[in-house]
């Protein structure tokens, strides 16, 4: 090093001595904070208009002609510019410089406890949006893919919704662009799992929180699935899809540089699908339906503002012979006709770099006309929600989010001549700060207050998340808080007004994320208080029971467990796989339970292995998902203990092959998928006849199934093509 320096000086000396005599030199070594030399940094003196660059050893030396005051500026990739006023005298100046890494370029700590994000905006993410739609067995539905993540109970085919860490389907909420998506799932027959209503391609980001979530949201004891829709598209396109369950047409059209509309329409009819695949239940009216949706996206004021509005309307109907939930062993006709309208709008505006406004509004209206044997039931619910919030950054270490929301929810149910109804106005305010005293440590305390007009009660829910970076690629984080949720509408509609239910979450997460590998381990404990109990009635597993007896909030419970996640895209070229495993121990005393027990929708062990492999030579992507869930508990009236009998374990292997091809300007995907390719005869539980002498297995609506479809995407180009 010294030798280089000598030689450098010598060379420069030799070279420059020819051009000028009265001159001086500024020289030194540039290093980073750890003392490592910074090569190829550029140095520039603004008065002298002279410059140079460091060599591989971080050494620089610049000859100057003008003496007096000057300013030195050093720039290098990955560092903040170093600027210093210097006095140039007629003697050599030695200036050794330490460069600082800018805060925004560093791998900042990101709070990861409880949350798995899929977005394209961060270069390193656990999942990307496209990963979600290509999970085999997920049927292109976001929920199908979310079920392969740790902490989520695998749906055996008989349930609808998300069951997270011991919580039932009512304890998770889906949010789109900041407001709740009421009735996120299609209406269908009991015992037949339903898809979510939303096209996965309309989302640019998915953030799944299996607990300990932000103070922005409430009214979910377990989990939040927070989705963000796409921004302004860059160009026009048209997509056409056809498969064994229907056809669809969608597209986007740019109106000008700042405005675009998107549209989509689809018609579903499961006749071709159920025509080929033998079903375990009898559909006397095959599911069919249609959806129309449109979106308007608009940019304002040089990208400072973004407005999005979504409107969708859908209907579907189906008729099934189901096992009579009141009298196992006999069947009953069940038919449903659903109509759903959903409007969602959001507006984000950056008033400055440090100040952001966000407002959102949504409205939904949902009607189910149900036929249950000879009885007819009409259920209608509507929800209007508004949110306004303000985010302000005091400095790069501290920012605050303050907001409020209000929701108006109405339910109406007509059962033959009996009418039940309620209206609720729920208002909430929240405040959340984020403090990063230094780049390795982050705190996110928050508090949320809610008031229910229906219950004439409020709650205050503190939240806290924090994270500490333990190494260049690893971090440890914590999330926790109190979460409240009003009792299920089934109770409220009958005029019961129990207090809020409550759950406290504590979760601790360790994560290593390096290049294309992710390792996560998370342990959690959740306690449940004030759960609803039906008193003075006998236990029945019938989810359509309507005699609830006396209600109170004396229920309680807990859930604890460990979630493991490993993803690797690095080891084998072209192969991307992830393994998720969850162990849960949970018991609760709620609803009509006789004693504290593990609920009948919980498997103690859940394992998912998802693999994708692209064979470029044959332009085909193969994807496989293997799922294992230990047996769910079921109610055996002959057993001396409550809910302690277990069904056999559930297993499923799904395979999808997609052939990708471009014909001129058309990009085509043809797919073939098998669900339960091994034709495993899964039994999800048992139901007993009233006298307890006969038992009937609960089985999924389908065993092995095959599904074929295609998608064509047309891009519009300028008239005379490249």
């Amino acid at each position, binding site marked *: 090093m010294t030798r280089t320096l000598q030689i450098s000086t010598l060379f420069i000396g030799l070279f420059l001595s020819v051009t000028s005599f009265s001159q001086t030199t500024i020289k030194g070594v540039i290093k980073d904070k750890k003392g490592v030399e910074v090569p190829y940094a550029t140095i520039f003196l603004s008065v002298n208009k002279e*410059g140079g*660059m460091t060599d591989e050893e971080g050494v620089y030396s610049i000859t100057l002609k003008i003496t007096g005051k000057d300013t030195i500026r050093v720039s290098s990739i990955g560092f903040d510019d170093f600027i210093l006023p210097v006095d140039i005298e007629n003697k050599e100046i030695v200036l050794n410089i330490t460069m600082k890494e800018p805060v925004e370029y560093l791998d900042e700590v990101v709070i990861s406890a409880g949350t798995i994000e899929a977005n394209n905006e961060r270069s390193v993410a656990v999942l990307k949006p496209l990963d979600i739609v290509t999970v085999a067995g997920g049927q292109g539905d976001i929920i199908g893919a979310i079920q392969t993540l740790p902490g989520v109970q695998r749906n055996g085919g008989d349930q609808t919704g998300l069951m997270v860490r011991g919580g039932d389907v009512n304890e998770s909420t889906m949010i789109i662009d900041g407001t709740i998506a009421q009735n996120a799932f299609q209406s269908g027959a009991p015992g037949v799992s339903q898809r979510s209503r939303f096209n996965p391609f309309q989302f640019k980001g998915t953030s799944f929180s299996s607990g300990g979530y932000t103070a922005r949201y409430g009214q979910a004891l377990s989990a939040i699935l927070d989705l963000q829709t796409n921004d302004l598209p860059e160009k026009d396109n048209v997509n056409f899809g056809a498969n064994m369950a229907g056809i669809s047409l969608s597209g986007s059209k740019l109106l000008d540089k700042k405005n675009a509309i998107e549209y989509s329409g689809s018609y579903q009819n499961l006749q071709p699908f159920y025509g080929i695949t033998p079903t375990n239940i009898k559909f006397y009216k095959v599911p069919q339906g249609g959806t129309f949706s449109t979106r308007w996206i608009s940019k304002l004021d040089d990208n400072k503002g973004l407005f999005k509005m979504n409107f969708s309307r859908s209907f579907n109907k189906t008729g099934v012979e189901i096992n009579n939930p009141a009298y196992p062993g006999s069947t009953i006709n069940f038919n449903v006709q659903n109509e759903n309208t959903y409007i969602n709008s959001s507006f984000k505006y950056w008033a400055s770099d440090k100040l952001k406004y966000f407002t959102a509004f949504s409205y939904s209206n949902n009607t189910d006309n149900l036929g249950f044997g000879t009885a007819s039931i009409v259920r209608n619910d509507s929800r209007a929600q508004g949110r306004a919030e303000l985010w302000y950054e005091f400095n790069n270490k501290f920012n605050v989010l303050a907001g409020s929301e209000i929701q108006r929810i109405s339910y109406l149910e007509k059962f033959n001549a009996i009418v039940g109804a309620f209206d609720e106005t729920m208002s909430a305010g929240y405040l959340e700060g984020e403090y990063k005293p230094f780049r390795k440590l982050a705190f996110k305390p928050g508090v949320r207050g809610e008031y229910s007009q229906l219950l004439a009660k409020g709650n205050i829910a503190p939240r806290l998340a924090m994270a500490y970076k333990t190494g260049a690629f690893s971090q440890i984080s914590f999330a926790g808080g109190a979460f409240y949720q009003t009792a299920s509408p089934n109770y409220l509609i009958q005029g019961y007004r129990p207090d809020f239910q409550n759950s406290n979450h504590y979760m601790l997460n360790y994560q290593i994320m390096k290049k294309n590998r992710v390792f996560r381990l998370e342990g959690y404990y959740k306690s449940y208080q004030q759960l609803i109990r039906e008193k003075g009635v006998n236990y029945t597993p019938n989810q359509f029971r309507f005699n609830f007896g006396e209600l109170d909030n004396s229920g309680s419970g807990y859930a604890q467990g460990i979630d493991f996640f490993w993803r690797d895209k690095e080891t084998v070229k072209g192969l991307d796989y992830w393994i998720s495993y969850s162990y849960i121990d949970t018991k609760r005393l709620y609803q009509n339970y006789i004693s504290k027990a593990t609920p009948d929708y919980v498997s103690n062990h859940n394992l998912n292995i998802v693999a994708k492999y692209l064979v470029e030579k044959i332009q085909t992507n193969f994807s496989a998902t293997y799922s294992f869930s230990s047996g769910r508990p079921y109610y055996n009236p002959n057993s001396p203990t409550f809910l302690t009998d277990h069904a056999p374990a559930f297993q499923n292997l799904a395979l999808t092959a997609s052939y990708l091809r471009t014909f001129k300007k058309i990009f085509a995907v043809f797919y073939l998928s098998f669900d339960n390719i091994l034709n495993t005869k899964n039994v999800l539980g048992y139901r007993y006849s009233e006298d307890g002498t006969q038992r009937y297995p609960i089985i999924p609506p389908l065993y092995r199934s095959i599904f074929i479809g295609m998608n064509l995407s047309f891009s519009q180009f300028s008239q005379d093509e490249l």
Partner: protein
Amino acid sequence: MRPFFIKITLTVAIALSITVVNAQTLEESLVPAFQQIDTSKTMGGMMSAAAKLDLITNKFPNEYASNYYSAYAKAMISYVEKDAKRRDLFLDMADKFFLKAQQIKPNDQETYILAALLANARLSVDGGSRWKKFGEIFDKNLNAAKEINPNNPRIYHLKGVALFFTPKMFGGGVKNASEQLEKASLLFSSQDSSSILIPHWGEKRNAEFMAKCDE
């Protein structure tokens, strides 16, 4: 990087960079620095060329060409750099120079082409998840350049290179790439390369990719 002569080369480069900045006109300064970025095969050579270009831009901060080449050099380095995060950092720097160049000549064919080059560089950092966003920005800018001058060879050169790296199933592949590269090749031979101030890069790189297509 022990060899002694590398250090000497670099030392000479430092000395040269000083003379470069001392040179009288923008044009005279740009020619050797541009030649170096266009011919260097090593990170060190490209970095020193980029540093020279930055020094020139420091001296001529309001000139289109200086900002243009500073951005261009960063994009070229980003293709050579291995670390994904550093590639983005180079492109962040390139964006700063690009925005300045865009301010000076907002509706220029070469500005659109530079925007397309930067979009392609971003895309190639993480093709799997960036193809949609940056692929669209790339196409949009090349189309805008084409509306101004359909005979600019860099439109077809960039399109060809992008297709070369796009899997066949997504409309890329060698056959589609070479069509574009050949079209570019014809246009390169008749382009105006009289002054460094009018960008005319790409002919050599185009020929390299044509050779790769023939392999």
